[in-house]
């Protein structure tokens, strides 16, 4: 198909045209991420389109190609044009020239068509400003939106901008979601929280750390406690069924089978004595600062 000019002349029932909108002066290509590549200025007509493949060079090229071209809106009814005319052809009528960008035909014995280069309004404002209503609409569409939804079985509210936060009150629970992921849920079973908790103090009966896939660690600059009693075995030969005691009064081991236990001190020990409390098993060796001391005998009684 080649693009050509169609002569309409005065063979048109009605032709209403708007003043020339002027040359295309600005091209905005918007990517999926909302990034806009802008070429040109606001001195004329702006063209805007979504294009995830856009770049500044492409926006510049589009504008360069349109340099000096203008858009002339019109609306023509019952124009006698050749049946060979296509969308995109030029149209001349009584000194007016524009493109055929809309073409509607109701076939009859004569080849008449309604043709147009459409426009939202016949008024092209010469002063560039955004009315308050449009500004509100733009803000709603481009920046943030929100809703409060009340249904028979739930009430929910959300606010969405770059991210989305929402809460929902249902018959059996209440949920808070961040970016569609549940971060807190309250139900008759209690409170479930995904993510971290920051608080001043927690007073609780029992505290269970970890779960499936967790590391089971408590991290603290200072850990103050009355006593710590590990209840499970620590992996490794000879440490089964054992434990240790870290109390305000001292530090002690409580291995059920001491004959297989070795104790290593990473730092030198400065102690007045080593005391063994027991009656059956005696440590054979004590290693202090790399020197092995053999225990010959332990006083009893």
């Amino acid at each position: 198909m080649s693009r050509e000019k169609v002569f309409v002349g005065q063979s048109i029932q009605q032709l209403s045209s708007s003043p020339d909108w002027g040359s295309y002066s600005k091209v905005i290509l918007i990517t999926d991420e909302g990034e806009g590549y802008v070429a040109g200025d606001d001195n004329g007509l702006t063209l805007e389109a979504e294009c995830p493949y856009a770049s500044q060079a492409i926006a510049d090229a589009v504008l360069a190609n349109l340099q000096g071209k203008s858009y002339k809106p019109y609306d023509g009814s019952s124009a006698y044009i050749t049946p060979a005319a296509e969308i995109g052809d030029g149209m001349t009528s009584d000194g007016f020239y524009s493109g055929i960008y809309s073409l509607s035909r109701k076939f009859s014995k004569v080849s008449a068509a309604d043709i147009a280069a459409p426009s939202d309004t016949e008024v092209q404002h010469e002063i560039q400003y955004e009315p308050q209503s449009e500004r509100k609409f733009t803000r709603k569409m481009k920046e943030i939106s929100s809703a409060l939804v009340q249904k028979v079985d739930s009430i929910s509210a959300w606010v969405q901008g770059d991210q989305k936060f929402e809460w929902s009150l249902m018959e059996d629970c209440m949920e808070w979601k961040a970016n569609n992921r549940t971060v807190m849920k309250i139900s008759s079973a209690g409170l479930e929280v995904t993510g971290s908790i920051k608080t001043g103090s927690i007073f609780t009966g029992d505290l269970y750390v970890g779960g499936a896939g967790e590391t089971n660690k408590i991290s603290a600059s200072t850990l103050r406690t009355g006593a710590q009693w590990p209840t499970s075995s620590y992996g490794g030969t000879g440490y089964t069924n054992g434990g240790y005691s870290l109390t305000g009064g001292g530090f002690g081991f409580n291995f059920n089978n001491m004959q297989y236990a070795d104790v290593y001190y990473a730092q030198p020990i400065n102690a007045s004595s080593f005391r063994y409390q027991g009656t059956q098993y005696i440590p054979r060796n004590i290693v202090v600062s790399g020197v092995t001391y053999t225990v010959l005998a332990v006083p009893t009684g």
Partner: protein
Amino acid sequence: MQNTSELFKTIWNSGNYESEIKAVINGVEYFENQLMDVSIKRELFGGNNVTIGSTCVASCSLTLTSDTMTGRDISAQIPRGARIEIWERISGEVMDTSRNAVAGTAKPGIAIVGIAAEYKATHSEWLLQGVFFVDCRDYTSWESRLVLEGVDAMIFADADYPGEDTWPENGKRDIDVARQIAGYINVSLDSGTKLGNNYRIPIPLSYTMREVLGFIGAMYGGNWVITKEGKLSLITLAGLPEETNFLVTNYGSPIKFGGDRILVS
């Protein structure tokens, strides 16, 4: 503009013509005595304002009457999604150059020989006015009238881009992508569509073919349509022919002087 024969131009330029249409639905021809209210609507932009990156679907509407298929359910004879072609030709009188020498008698005994034009009725070739596919229908049995609404092949591009394992790592050339989409929707790429910048298109994982076309169109400052001959075509805003001031007849034919066109200043 579609290509037309010299005969078509001659009839059109005479200004004295009649238009005639026919529809070919699923391969069966229906003529004017069988057709009512045939209309076609085409647009370039997605709305009422100038845009780039649009991919508009053209539509048609036509009514078939009982004259076409008496005694049978006319709706049942047309399959779902059937192809509709609408054709038009013009008819008129053109000079019969084979019989332009006539003889006559002015007065008894005085014979004159002159040249007089003789005209003969003729018609042009059929011009395809659009290829559509039945989208919905409304059958009134008591009138035996069937109204068909059709849309063009652009509607088929409203589908996910088919997966492909061999997409080049640095993207595929835009013209190849456009040609591939044309193939997927069973049309060909219009020969007038030139994508000269060779932009590379990454594999379109989450876009429809129609969206991809729109993105390519935007990169060239244009919009896609399906032409009357059923081809995928990019119409760029910059591609509007330049306005000229050559002298033409009332019907748009160039007026020439010694073979040259006359420019009005």
